[in-house]
Each structure stands twice: as C-alpha cells, then as structure tokens.
C-alpha cells in the first residue's frame, strides 16, 4: 500500500479506509510525531487519536516502546528503509491490548514500518530524505496462540511418533473403515521383524503375514476380537518376507474417533520365536531331567531295596576304612544301628587286629579279594564269622576312593562244618570199633570245642539197675561227677534224670551249677542216657548249641547201639544163646588158655564132660520148649556150681563141659562133679509137672590124664561113656 502523503495529510476517504482496517495504522512525520492514529490503535493503546497527535512514540509510551521499533522508525525516516518487526523476535514492540477495559490481554504484534517518500524525494534525485513513515500494527495474538497449540500438539505427536518409530515391537496401523483393512503405517521394528519394508505393505491386508497358515487358534482369537471391536491378544505363527516362520505375540487394539467409531486398528507384534524356542527347549530339557531323575530314583529305590533286603552285608568304606554306608543285613549281623556305625572303622568290629588293615586302602589294603574274619557283636555275644568280598570302587579314572565290602555270615556254615568234622571223627571212631569210653570221651571234648566254656558229659543208663552213670566226663570236676552217678530216672530228679524221664531236653538255668541235658534215644526211641552240659553261665542254650546237643545225642546213640550190637555179636559167637554158657569155640579157647596157664604155672586143671540122662524123653513127652527150659535151668545150675574163673559150656544138644582152670587137688574135680550131679538132679518145674533129668559126668585132669585140649576132651568124653555104660547118674575119672 503505497501511501502517497502530501505533506503528511490524508484526505477524508483515505482516513475512512484506514479507520475501518482491522489493524493499527499510524502515520508519523519525519520527526516521528503522530500525524494519524486510527481507531484500532486508539482502542488497543487506550490512547485516543487526539491525545496521540503530535507526539512521538516515546512520548506516548515511554520505555514501553521497543528500541527496535524506534530504530525502524528512524531508519525509515533517515534512509527510507522499510522494516518488519516480527512477533517472534519482538513480541510486543508497543504496549497494546486486546479487548476492552480490565479484561484486556497483552497483544502480540507484528509491525510493518514503511517509509513515506517526501515530495522532493523522487526516484532519481536521492538527495532529500523521506517525510515520515507509515506504521502498520497487526494483532497476531490468535495466530500465536494457534501456533503454540499446534506446536504443542505437534510436539506431543512427534513424541508419540518417535516412540512408535523407536519401539522394538512391530507396530502397524490399519484402516478400520475399509473392508480390506489396508495397512496405513508400519514402523521400523515391523520391518526388522518381518523383513517387509513399510512401503511394501502399505495398502495391503495384514493377512499376508499368516502365509497359508490361516486356521491357527491364535488367529481365531484375533478375528473374534476384531469382530467385537475390542482388544485381543494371541500368539500366532507368522511368516517373514523370506518365507521363514516366526512366533508373533500379537496384540490388536481398536482406535475410536470422538464419536466412538472404530477408525483404525493398531497391531503390536513381538517376535517371541527365540523365547518360544527357548521355552520349548527348556521344557524338553526339564522333561528329560525329570525323566532321568525318575529313572535314577526308581533305580536307586530298587537298588536300595535290594541292598536292604539281601541277607548279605553290604558295607561301603572310604579310603581310611571308615564306614560310609551299611545295609540292614549289616546292621542285623553287627547288632548295631547305621547311625552308630557310620564314621567308625569296620576294622574296629573285627576282633583280630591283624585283619583291620585289610579294610584300609590307606594302609595298603582294600585290594579286590576275599577274607574271612570274625565280627564282634555288642554285649559280649559270640562273634560272627563273616566272609568278605572286597571290591575297590573308583569314580571316573581316579584312584579308588571307596571300598565295597560284601559280606556273608558264615558262622552257621563254619559251625556246621566243624560239627560235621567232629561227627565224622566220632563216627570213624565208632566204625573202627574204638573203645566205648574213648569214643564218648572224644565226643565230650568235641562238644566242648563247639561250645566254648561248656563242660560235657555223657551219662548212660546202667543195664542192670536202670540208673544213670557218667560214662565220659573228661572235664567235669569229681564233685559233680559224683553227683551224676547212680541217678534214678525220675520227674523230680536232677537235670539229667529229668531229661531221661521226660524224654526231652531240659535246661536248668537257675540250678547250681546250671545244667543242660538232652536225652539219648535208641533207634527204637528208648532212652539210653543223656548228653549233659555244664555251661559257664546260667542261660538257655543258643539255637546252634541246641543243635550241637541234639547231634551229640544222636552220635552217642549210634556209638552205644553200635557198641551193644558188637557185644551182642561177640556174645553170640562165643556163647550158647539158650543157656548163656560158653559154646564150643569159647570153650576151646578157654581150654587152650587154661592149659597154657597151667603149664606155665605148673598147676592142674580139670575138665568135666556132662551128658544129661532122660532128657530125650522130656523132649519127646513135653516138647522142645520144655526141653529148652530144662536146658536153660540146668545151665544156670551148672554155672552156680563153679567159680568165676571157671568156664561152663554147652557143646551139644544135652552135652555140657565144665573147665576148672586151676585145681589144687584131683579130688576138687570130683567134688565139683558131685555138686553138679546134685544140682542137675533137682526137678525143673514145667507147668504142673516136675521134670527130672540126671547126668553122667566124665572127668579128665591136666596134666595127669592128658596134656592137650583135644586129648583132655576125649578122655573126659570117654570117661562119661564109661559112666553111661555103668548105669548113669554118676561122675568118674576115666
């Protein structure tokens, strides 16, 4: 607006125009004094045109007018330069106000300063200065406010954009108002995750990310969320541009406008492939570990059960032989708990000090092999025999760090072996027909070996008076031995007597001395005697001790029965079973002995040959039983007529011989013969009958009649025949 002022005056129409303008217009003369002040300026400055006229800006506003404006006015006046005073650099060059009264607010201004050309100031003259300037003030308060608001929103938006751009999560925005939901925006993270550039996906439906995998459960969840216009979240399998798959943790959120209409969807994706894979790997690894643990646990339980159940001892030792673990069998055999055993040395349980180092690898022991040792038991009990198998155990390739000791309790076996050995020895003695007393004494000693601390005796029932007498009692004191002698078998008797009476073992733990007795039974279960033990202390025998006693009793039975059978055999070989007199064999033997004796000592012997008279008639009349009774009775009577050192024999059906081993006078033989005649002549009762026989006796003397056995018998036989011929019933020397 090239104002053409003539001496800085305005015509009226121009004044009206300026008054109507919606900006401030002031006309200043060359000295900077107000010539024109339009109503807008009067309103904004609260200074009327009349008040302003003729005064400079400094006079009107004082310090409130900015130097820049004054300079611009001056340079317009001085040089003819036009100036702009922008709001941003000057804000309020003049103290102007918007609105009226006290409600007014400071006005943000933009001011244009135009030089006015003076009349003399033509384009080519250049000599004279301009005559003043035109000030145009624009109110830009609204613009400032609007821009500030805009800038703030822009700033906020930019911040948000930056957040979206910088997000590590892939973000896409789709247009919800279009059916095919085209992608409007994709952030750099989306590109990083999928490989798709933003411009490649613009306008496309996001379904291309699913590839052919359109029926995933995750997608269904997302579709449902979109259909219901709500937020949805799911893990879906998506595909990158290069075709590779990835796991996408997708969140979809609707964006609504001010009317509540959904205009966009924001899809936020996170690539959780690594996490998913890591989780899967972790799960697999966990499952494997769990399975392995279970397997291990099962095996461990199984092994533990086996270890705890087996009869064998299993002891684990460290290098110093210290017990690390011991199973139940080990605890049973040693009689101690695992707690009390762990930490102690296995060697300390072995009474033999030489055995200890075998269990210590640090002392050169612990090599693989076997060893049999005793193991002590608490309370002074009898140590157990254990046969150990040692196996060093090393972890990896290092030196052996543990010693596995597997032990078997061989106590019973050793006892059994020892018992068997003793039995065998005894049976050998029996078989060799060793002396009865020696055999039983040996048996007692053997029992004492099997049962340390005990003293053994064998008592047998006396055949004649049925009283118990010790047959073997090698270590029984005389006093006790006496007490055992001649015991009556009775319920109220001592230990031995009671056992024999009850036919069962009796253990008297409270007696003085304590005593155990086991009856010895024959094969026909009759009591033969007892095996009697005097134990060191008053206690019940241990099971193995009972076993020893029972076996000993059987051995005694065998030995006694064998002994008796032998004696019976011997008797049958030399004696006449009917009469109990010697038979021909024994007679012959005794005769030889008697002759030898008589010859050595120059003494005489006599032989009586006795033949019964009338015996055949008894046999025929009363039968053989009557005959046998007569023979047995006659035999006893003959035996009663002679000394112990003499011998009576039956050598035929009714033929007897008596050997008088030493006689002082020849008449002695006749005297004995007469006694025999008398004895035979007495009747023998047989039922209601009194059976009577007589005898014919021939006598021969040594050395007077003959000097050999056969010759003596012949002479005596001949003499007897002579008596028979002579009328029977007499005794005569031939």
């Amino acid at each position, binding site marked *: 607006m090239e104002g053409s002022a003539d001496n800085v005056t305005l015509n009226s129409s121009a004044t009206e125009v300026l008054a109507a303008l919606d900006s401030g217009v002031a006309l200043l003369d060359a000295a900077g004094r107000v010539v024109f002040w339009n109503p807008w300026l009067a309103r904004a400055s609260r200074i009327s045109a009349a008040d302003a006229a003729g005064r400079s800006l400094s006079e009107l506003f004082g310090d409130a007018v900015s130097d820049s404006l004054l300079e611009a006015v001056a340079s317009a006046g001085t040089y*003819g330069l036009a100036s*702009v005073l*922008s709001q*941003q*650099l000057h804000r309020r060059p003049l103290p102007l106000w918007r609105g009226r009264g006290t409600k007014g607010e400071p006005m943000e201004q*933009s001011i244009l300063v135009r030089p006015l050309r003076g009349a003399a100031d033509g384009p080519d003259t*250049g000599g004279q200065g301009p005559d003043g300037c035109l000030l145009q003030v624009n109110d*830009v308060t609204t613009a*400032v406010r609007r*821009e500030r608001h805009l800038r703030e929103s822009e700033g906020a938006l930019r911040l948000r954009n930056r957040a979206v751009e910088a997000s590590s999560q892939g973000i896409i925005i789709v247009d919800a108002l279009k059916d095919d939901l085209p992608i409007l925006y994709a952030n750099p993270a989306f590109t990083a995750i999928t490989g798709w550039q933003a411009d490649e996906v613009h306008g496309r439906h996001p379904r291309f990310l699913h590839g052919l995998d359109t029926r995933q459960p995750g997608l269904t969840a997302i579709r449902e969320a979109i259909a219901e216009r709500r937020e949805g979240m799911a893990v879906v399998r998506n595909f990158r541009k290069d075709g590779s798959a990835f796991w996408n943790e997708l969140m979809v959120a609707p964006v609504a406008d001010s009317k509540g209409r959904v205009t966009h969807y924001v899809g936020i994706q996170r690539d959780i492939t690594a996490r998913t894979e890591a989780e899967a790997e972790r799960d697999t690894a966990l499952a494997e570990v769990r399975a392995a643990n279970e397997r291990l646990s099962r095996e461990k339980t199984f092994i533990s059960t086996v270890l705890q159940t087996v009869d064998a001892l299993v002891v684990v030792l460290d290098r110093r032989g210290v017990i690390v673990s011991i199973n139940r069998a080990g605890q049973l055999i040693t009689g101690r708990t695992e707690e009390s055993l762990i930490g102690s040395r296995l060697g300390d349980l072995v009474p033999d000090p030489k055995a200890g180092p075998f269990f210590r690898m640090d002392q050169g022991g612990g090599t693989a092999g076997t060893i049999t040792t005793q193991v002590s038991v608490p309370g002074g009990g009898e140590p157990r025999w254990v046969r150990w198998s040692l196996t060093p155990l090393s972890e990896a390739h290092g030196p052996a760090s543990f010693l596995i000791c597997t032990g078997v309790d061989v106590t019973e076996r050793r006892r059994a072996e020892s018992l068997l050995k003793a039995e065998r020895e005894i049976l050998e003695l029996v078989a060799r027909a060793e002396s009865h007393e020696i055999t039983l004494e040996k048996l007692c000693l053997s029992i004492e070996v099997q049962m340390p601390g005990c003293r053994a005796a064998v008592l047998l029932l006396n055949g004649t008076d049925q009283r118990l007498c010790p047959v073997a009692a090698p270590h029984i004191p005389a006093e006790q031995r006496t007490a055992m002698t001649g015991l009556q078998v009775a319920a109220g008797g001592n230990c031995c007597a009671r056992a024999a009476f009850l036919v069962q073992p009796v253990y008297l733990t409270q007696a003085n001395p304590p005593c155990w007795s086991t009856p010895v039974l024959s094969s026909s279960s009759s009591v033969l005697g007892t095996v009697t033990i005097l134990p060191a202390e008053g206690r019940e025998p241990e099971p193995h001790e009972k076993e020893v006693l029972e076996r000993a009793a059987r051995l005694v039975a065998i030995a006694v029965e064998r002994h008796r059978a032998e004696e019976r055999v011997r008797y049958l070989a030399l004696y006449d079973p009917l009469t109990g007199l010697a038979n021909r064999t024994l007679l012959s033997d005794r005769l030889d002995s008697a002759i030898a004796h008589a010859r050595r000592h120059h003494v005489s012997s006599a032989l009586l040959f006795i033949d019964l008279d009338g015996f055949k008639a008894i046999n025929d009349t009363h039968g053989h039983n009557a005959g046998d009774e007569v023979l047995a009775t006659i035999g006893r009577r003959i035996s009663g007529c002679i000394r112990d050192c003499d011998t009576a024999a039956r050598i035929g059906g009714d033929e007897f011989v008596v050997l008088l081993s030493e006689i002082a006078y020849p008449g002695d033989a006749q005297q004995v013969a007469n006694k025999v005649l008398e004895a035979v002549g007495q009747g023998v009762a047989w039922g209601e009958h009194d059976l009577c026989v007589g005898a014919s006796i021939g006598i021969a003397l040594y050395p007077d009649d003959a000097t050999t056995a056969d010759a003596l018998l012949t002479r005596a036989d001949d003499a007897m025949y002579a008596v028979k011929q002579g009328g029977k019933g007499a005794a005569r020397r031939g």
Partner: protein
Amino acid sequence: MTDPFFTDVQRDALTEMMNLGVGRAASAFSKLVGDEVLLSVPEICLTTVADAVAQFTGGESRAFAGVMESFDGFIDGTAALLFPGERSLELVRAVIGEDMPADEISDLEEETLAEIGNIILNNCLATVANSLRKRIHTSLPETYRATGDAMFPFLDAAPQVDAGTPVTPMLLLVQIDFSLRERDIGGFLAFLIDLKSTEAFRSAIDEYLAELGV
C-alpha cells in the same frame, strides 16, 4: 576473476561495504536475540543470472527458500537472501531459539524469516548507500520459495528489456555464513541490479574512491 561489470578496485570497495553491512546486520541480530550471532562474507562475485542459476542448482533441481525485497534510489533492483532447501526454516528456529526439526514453516515463522532477511538486506543496502552518500528506498520483505530455474522469481520484478532487446542484468552474489547457537548455516545474498542502474552504481563507486583518494 575479472568480471564485465567492475574493475578490481571497484569490486574491492564493494566487498568492503558488504562486509561492513553484514557486520552491522550481525550486530543487530546479536542485540535482538541476546546471543552472539556471527556473519561472515567469504566471497562476493558479480555474475549473470544464467551463470548464477547454473552455479546454484548444479544441474539438479534443488529447492530454495528466501526473502526478497526491492529497492530503488540511486540504483534500482531486487535484493534477496537465499538458502538451499530447508535451511531458511532452520535459520529461523536457530534465531528464535527453538530446538525443533525443520518441518512446515508457520505464518509467524515466515514473518520472522522476512525480518531476518530484512535486517541483513537493509543493513547491506543502507551501508552501501550511506558509504556512497546516496539515498535508497527499500520495500517490505517477502518470503518465497522456489525450485531450479524458478529460483529467482525476483528477476521478474525488474524486466530486463532495453530498447526491445533482453539484456542480462548484473547479479551481485554474496556468500554468507551464519553462526549462532552452535549452528552454522550457509546462504547467499543476491543483489540483482537493473542494467540501467549499473552505470550510476559504477560512477557512485568511482566518486567514493575518488573522495578516498584512490
């Protein structure tokens, strides 16, 4: 470099005056923004419009933005402040102390840019006129933007027709560097001087040199 318009001596005098003007502008800026603003003039040259266009664009289509104002007095013409691309907005932001990335320029910012151009161009023109003891009028500044060949719309402001023949006007190009608030922004001042004024310009400079006794 010799040019068809000025002798070396004339050109040196002109350079000195431009330096002086830019120096005053810098001082005015510093006062205005309350911070030191440095303006330097590394080079000035006189050229033709065609050469200038070629030099600026480098054959490429580049965006330019700037402020121009016309002047008349002992010489007539159009003066402009030119920045490549978005540097003008950057300059405004630097001057008003806003730390925001260049984006759209607002109305108020456009006015600020106009004032920046106004201050520089006025100072330069006033200094030259003052030195030469001549008078000069300037118009209010206008902002503009342009690309490529259309970078000098102000060429149209002074149609170069002399006796029916188009004549190449003289173009005084002054490269300037702003340095403020740790930012360096390079631009140009362009003074397109009407051909019919060039002789007056030359004689005014000669008078000035004569007075100085050169």
